[in-house]
């Protein structure tokens, strides 16, 4: 079978399920009794197992299989979730992540998960001191009756057999790696087992064994009078059998199950971990998660295809405009009416295509709870991460880029922001720190905030470090306001951590964050109060591909000015322009604003001199970059429009004052002004 064509799908789906696993195990940690969460985890693990077995990734399948055993026992309350189990499951998820990534680079075998599998098996057998189930031998055996589920008929067979002094065993038979005729081997095993007893059940079922629909391992339930050693000999006498695990199998009927449950619920308080302090809140969370996961069906589409679609829609609009003109020139009322209809459809089409590219920011956010958990555990801090507005949508291109800066900010908050529990208590704060990750719309922007209630940033310390590192002079530091000083953290080579830790503080953090966000056309700001916390506010454009712009006309040429950098547009008289040191300026609301004459800067050929002379009223677009302002004189304002940014290509790259190009409704290309270079 050519599996390569399914590879992409496998990778994507596995990643999705692993993400889901991560989230659910986090929920489970907070609410160990939540059966719906357990079910969710089980389903995800099962899907991964199925997919990887089909694709022939045995290591993944084997690991998930063992994981499933544990999960199933948890689900059936044969085992109680405790920190050890949760951590092992987390480790499994991590290892699976590594395995899936290694699959994409074609070296599945390089990761050794034997110790983990051994650990899982040990857990399944209840070989941990904390597990309350091991009180008596009978209960222990009950636990061993691992994941195999029996129908009533099978149960009665086992009961009967037990009555006749026979025993039911669960056999885990492992074929040697590279075994070619797996179905033949399994058939031989079955035959051999039939000689010493009755095989009442196999997993997978016999038909699937015959079709080789299993990995290197399959299970069989054998009812026999022989002992374990004999079974082992029989099975291992067949060649290409790697090993066989034999576990005595005992029925867990309803009554005994309930008993165990009771044992466990009384024992529970002793095994609970402090980390589960958020437990009361977690149940409703899990429920909303359920709702969301079920909502909506989706189709995976390559982003390139969407781009192509967007271009085609653009073409359609342009051709429609041409038809419109034909209709008008030839006075064809019928045509004009039809085109009006078409106009509505194309407008809708355009907006739908734009919307299709939007992705909820939750796709980035959902990996953070796990990260926060691991980091806070590592630092012995207790942190509650609150995520709001994960449904806020951003363009795909922005989503792909925003992850890293957010990781930086969160790590900073966890490491430098939130204090250790005892320190917090001493300050009279809740020992559990709180980090809020909030996304929301604000006009044409999306705001993402990382807020913590930690110790805040002390401007005096920031100043001192900046001076020490030679980033600013002492004189500058003395003059600096507190809120300005805090912004020094964004300077390259600045790190406030006294100790460089694993988590953050390598001195590359904040300036990298700032650069990245600015390259996305966004801004980052920080507000902080000592001992109350700090708030990092990221402002991002909805999309990189589409912006709102003001179209202006200069002589015969049309240019687009990004709306984000426009303050206002005003009319002035030519006489309002004054000259200061040979530079043209004018006064607006008491501010002196330098004039930029586009016609001059862009070397626009003047069409009619007389028109310019007559023009006494001048249109001025006041733009700003940071604190810098300038008034751009244009001949006419055409209007505000959503434009799709296109690059000018390699040949014309690097032209100052031009940021790119866009295609107007009539098919004409208009250039987008680069305000920053225009002002300077």
């Amino acid at each position: 079978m050519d599996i390569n064509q399914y590879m992409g799908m496998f990778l994507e789906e596995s990643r999705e399920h692993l993400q889901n696993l991560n989230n659910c195990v986090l929920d489970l940690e907070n609410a160990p009794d939540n059966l719906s969460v357990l079910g969710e985890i089980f389903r995800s693990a099962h899907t991964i197992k199925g997919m990887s077995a089909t694709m022939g990734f045995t290591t993944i399948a084997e690991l998930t299989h063992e994981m499933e055993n544990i999960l199933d026992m948890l689900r059936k309350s044969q085992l109680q979730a405790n920190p050890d189990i949760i951590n092992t499951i987390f480790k499994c998820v991590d290892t699976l992540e590594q395995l899936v990534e290694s699959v994409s680079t074609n070296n599945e075998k390089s990761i050794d998960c034997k110790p983990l599998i051994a650990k899982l098996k040990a857990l399944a057998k209840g070989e941990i001191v904390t597990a309350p189930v091991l009180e008596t031998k009978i209960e222990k055996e009950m636990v061993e009756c691992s994941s195999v589920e029996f129908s009533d008929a099978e149960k009665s067979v086992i009961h009967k057999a037990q009555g006749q002094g026979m025993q039911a065993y669960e056999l885990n038979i492992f074929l040697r790696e590279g075994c070619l005729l797996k179905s033949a081997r399994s058939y031989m095993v079955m035959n051999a087992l039939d000689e010493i007893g009755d095989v009442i059940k196999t997993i997978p079922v016999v038909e699937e064994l015959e079709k080789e629909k299993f990995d290197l391992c399959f299970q069989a339930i054998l009812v026999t009078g022989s002992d374990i050693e004999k079974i082992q000999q029989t099975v291992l006498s067949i060649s290409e059998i790697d090993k066989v695990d034999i576990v005595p199998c005992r029925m867990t009927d309803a009554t005994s199950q309930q008993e165990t449950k009771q044992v466990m619920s009384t024992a529970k308080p002793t095994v609970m971990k402090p980390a589960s302090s958020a437990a009361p809140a977690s149940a409703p969370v899990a429920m909303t998660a359920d709702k969301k996961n079920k909502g909506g069906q989706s189709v995976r589409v390559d982003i390139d295809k969407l781009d192509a679609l967007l271009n085609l829609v653009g073409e359609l609009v342009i051709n429609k405009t041409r038809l419109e003109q034909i209709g008008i020139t030839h006075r064809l009322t019928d045509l004009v009416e039809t085109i009006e209809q078409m106009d509505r459809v194309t407008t809708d089409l355009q907006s739908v295509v734009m919307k299709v590219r939007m992705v909820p920011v939750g796709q980035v956010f959902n990996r953070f709870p796990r990260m926060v958990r691991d980091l806070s555990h590592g630092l012995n801090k207790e942190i509650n991460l609150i995520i709001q507005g994960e449904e806020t949508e951003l363009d795909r291109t922005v989503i792909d880029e925003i992850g890293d800066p957010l990781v930086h900010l969160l790590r900073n908050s966890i490491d430098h922001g939130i204090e250790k529990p005892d320190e917090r208590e001493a300050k009279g704060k809740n020992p559990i720190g709180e980090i809020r990750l909030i996304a929301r719309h604000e006009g044409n922007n999306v705001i993402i905030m990382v807020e913590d209630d930690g110790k805040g940033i002390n401007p005096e310390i920031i100043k001192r470090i900046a001076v020490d590192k030679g980033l600013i002079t002492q004189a500058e530091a003395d003059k600096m306001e507190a809120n300005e000083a805090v912004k020094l953290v964004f300077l390259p080579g600045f790190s406030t951590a006294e100790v460089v830790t694993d988590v953050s503080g390598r001195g590359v953090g904040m300036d990298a964050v700032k650069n990245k966000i600015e390259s996305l056309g966004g801004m980052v700001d920080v507000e902080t109060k000592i001992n109350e916390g700090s708030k990092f506010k990221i402002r991002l454009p909805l999309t990189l591909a589409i912006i709102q712009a003001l179209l202006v006309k200069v002589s015969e040429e049309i240019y687009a000015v990004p709306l984000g950098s426009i303050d206002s547009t005003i009319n002035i008289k030519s006489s309002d322009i004054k000259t200061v040191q040979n530079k043209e300026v004018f006064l607006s609301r008491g501010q002196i604003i330098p004039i930029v004459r586009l016609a001059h800067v862009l070397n626009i050929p003047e069409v009619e001199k007389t028109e310019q002379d007559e023009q006494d009223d001048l249109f001025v677009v006041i733009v700003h970059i940071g604190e810098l302002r300038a008034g751009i004189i244009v001949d006419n304002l055409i209007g505000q429009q959503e434009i799709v940014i296109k690059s000018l290509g390699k040949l014309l790259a690097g032209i100052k004052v031009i940021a790119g190009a866009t295609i107007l409704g009539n098919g004409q290309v208009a250039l987008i002004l680069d305000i920053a270079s225009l002002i300077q």
Partner: protein
Amino acid sequence: MSEQKYSNSEVQLVIFKLGREEYGVSILQVQEIKRISDITRVPHTPDYIKGVINLRGSVLPVIDLKKRLNLAQQEVTEDTRIIIVKVEELSIGMVVDAVSEVMTINQENIDSPEVVAGSISANYLSGVGKLENRLLILLNLEEIVGMGQDGNEM
């Protein structure tokens, strides 16, 4: 250069006119030929860059070939076309006075450019094709597009 790369002895050329001279480029480099449309001037570019056009949703630069080759300018006519060529993965439009035909020419009939290096810098030529009584000037597009040397032309 590019024409000589092909080992088979025949090359197919798109023939076009600049003024009264006939020029050719390998058909393999030509993407399409389109009527002249609105060209948006781009400031701060060399004068032979005529501007940019919209080709089905992407923005392409357009070169005024006659200016690039220092030939006399001529008004835009009904015959004026833009030939879209692909040079080093880059699509570029070239304004020409007319596109006449596609023809096959034998490699043997192509002389080295030194023979006729007159008004046009020899760098821009890859050869001269002889066909009965016609002379075809074959262009070296890589050099004409002049990747990375635009600065010298300012």
